[in-house]
């Protein structure tokens, strides 16, 4: 049989960004795969070395267009670790509300792209419509709709706007209603299940060896969530469950994300209810001491990590970003081989690619 390499990318509807997946196909069956990333390299880590600490917050936003809030939050957490700054409790609660809203918005965008990939147009438009609710909330909270520039070193930029509590609870109520509708739309669709069940099996051992994190790892049956295992912010006070699934396939990845959206709704309700009064920001020093800071968060896509080295000036000496998808995409050959060409969109779509953070 004749085998050939097919380039899926860099300009391809499947890629959702700018990367290239070379797959070797035998007819329709994949015999080899090779992801190529780096098309969107913007030199963000180097860029940060020439900016003062507060100037880096909007750059950290640009790391991932899907979930910019978690990345600027991660950056602020890392610098707070470096400077040893105590963040007011109200600021932590506002941050948790914001990043959980971001998790829902990011998962909805993933679901939209995933449904679009599978040819389910109605899934695309409905999820994007419901994401709009949270984007509007972000607009009320931060003024931005895609990149927010909201967390600050030592707190957050603003207090909650008037009536934000009410709006957030309403949005969560709406979202929970919609999630039930999605379960009808996706889980009860025979063709959707045909395209997902048993596709892209990633065994538990492989997932752990390849460094896969986030929903993809939890879908392989490993209960690993930074929010539980290395708690940050006020997550220890929140009551939520880590979503896991045993099936290791695309459907498991879909299901884990759906359950995570339910859990995020739960966390937002608790955080809004327990929100303390008080200050939302403390003044941070201009310079950071010599030393290192490390931050880890549970990004919607996996484990995000930042490592910053301060040299006593107002600029970092070095900032290292650990991107979840950069590591996860290396599992592509493992999970693609043996499936059909049409499964590439289901499998790679199920990993929730975000090239902004991958290439940095």
């Amino acid at each position, binding site marked *: 049989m004749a085998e*050939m390499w*097919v*380039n*899926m990318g860099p300009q*391809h*509807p*499947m890629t959702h960004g700018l990367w290239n997946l070379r797959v070797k*196909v035998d007819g*329709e069956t994949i015999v080899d795969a090779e992801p190529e990333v780096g098309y969107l390299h913007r030199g963000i880590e180097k860029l940060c070395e020439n900016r003062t600490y507060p100037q880096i917050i909007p750059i950290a936003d640009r790391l991932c267009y899907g979930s910019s809030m978690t990345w600027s939050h991660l950056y602020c957490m890392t610098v707070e670790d470096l400077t040893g700054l105590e963040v007011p409790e109200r600021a932590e609660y506002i941050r948790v509300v914001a990043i959980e809203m971001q998790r829902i918005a990011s998962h909805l965008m993933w679901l939209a792209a995933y*449904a*679009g*990939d*599978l*040819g*389910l*147009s*109605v*899934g*695309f*438009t*409905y999820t994007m*419509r419901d994401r709009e609710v949270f984007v509007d909330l972000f607009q009320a909270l931060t003024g931005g709709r895609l990149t927010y520039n909201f967390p600050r070193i030592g707190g957050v930029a603003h207090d909650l706007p008037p009536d934000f509590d009410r709006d957030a609870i309403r949005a969560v109520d709406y979202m929970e209603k919609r999630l039930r509708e999605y379960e009808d739309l996706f889980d009860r*669709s025979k*063709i*959707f299940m*045909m*395209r997902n069940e048993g596709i892209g099996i990633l065994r538990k051992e492989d997932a752990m060896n390849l460094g896969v994190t986030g929903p993809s790892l939890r879908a392989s049956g490993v209960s690993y969530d930074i929010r539980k295992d290395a708690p940050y912010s006020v997550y220890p006070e929140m009551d939520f469950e880590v979503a896991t699934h045993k099936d290791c396939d695309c459907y498991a990845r879909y299901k884990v994300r759906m359950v995570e959206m339910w859990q995020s709704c739960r966390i937002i309700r608790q955080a809004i209810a327990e929100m303390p009064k008080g200050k939302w920001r403390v003044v941070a020093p201009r310079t950071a001491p010599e030393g290192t800071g490390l931050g880890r968060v549970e990004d919607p896509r996996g484990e995000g990590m930042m490592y910053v080295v301060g040299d006593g000036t107002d600029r970092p000496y070095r900032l290292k970003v650990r991107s979840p998808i950069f590591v996860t995409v290396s599992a592509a050959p493992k999970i693609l081989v043996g499936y*059909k*060409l*049409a*499964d*590439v*969109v289901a499998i790679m779509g199920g990993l929730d690619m975000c090239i902004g953070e991958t290439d940095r």
Partner: protein
Amino acid sequence: MNLYEFSYGIIHWLVDLVNHLWYWLGDWLPWALGDFFTAVGDFAASDGHLSVMTMLLETLIIVIVALINVLNFLWIFRKLSGRILDFYGPYYVGYRIGGWLQNLADGMKLFVKEIIVPAKADKVGFLLAPIIYVGSSLLILATIPFSENFGLSTNPSGEYVPAGALFAIAAFAIAPFTILLAGWSSNNKYTLIGGMRSAAQMMSYEIPLLLTVASVFLLAGSFNFVDIVDMQHDIWFAIPLFIGFVVFLVCLMAEVEIIPFDLPEAEAELVEGWTTEYGGMRFGLFYMTTAVRSYAGGALATALFLGGWHGPSFIPDEIWFLIKAYLVFTVFMWVTWSLPRVRIDQMLGIGWKRLLPLAVLNLFIAAVVKSAGWV
């Protein structure tokens, strides 16, 4: 008055008008040339010439009517997708008629675009494939009558082409070969995979489709659309042959290549599938042809299963036929926008393991119904 008489009248009137001038010219010219003019005029007025021209005019009228319907179909396609997918659809171009002119505007835009032939494409195949694809799709429409009076006939009595239904089904089956040709000649991996998928797909759905159509032919005892529709005067074939009707609709969706089965142009994995290298008006023609084929599919389903033009007589026959065809199309669109795409091996599985046994069962039911004399 049927379409043949109408066209014959027009042609006859035109020939008379031209010949009047022509003979008058011939009278004025010297003798040899004058005789020649007279001979040409006599030929133009001869029965054979008139009937050929009449048939051409009939075809032209049918194609124009079909294309106007196709514009409606495209408009419904866009508006209905807006209703289902939660957006407005075309709106501004032709504001007062619900954005109906948007398709014309898009057509104009595509029409002025450059025609690009890839440097390494096989030029003959690349340029020939769209012509055959569009031509064969329009050919389907030629033999489908709207009513007893509106359809292609070859004689004044209005009798339609014998075996018209068989011809329409045969014309329907030409397209996959042109898709394979287009995919191969574009010299691109995506188009090649798309073309190959089309060939594989055709194998799996064509047989159940033909078996269900065969059951209709069995019940009607004829290949002629008029006989088939007349047999459904009392009861639509969709009722005794319900299984066949469902199988037929599923196969038609595969034949028309709309979403659950649009594997040859699966946009997520194959960019645009076999149409990747075609741009400008060729792309526009492909887009239009999808609607032409949906229209032909709806018309076939109407004529074969849904009683054709029969209905309460306060609405004209032709309108009944169109209403039914539009309804079938609406169902297609409804399914299209609410289902994901199946995979190629699953598609083949559906074709061979589900549709084929059901089609055989349907043929058996048709044989029982026919021999018991219930229809």
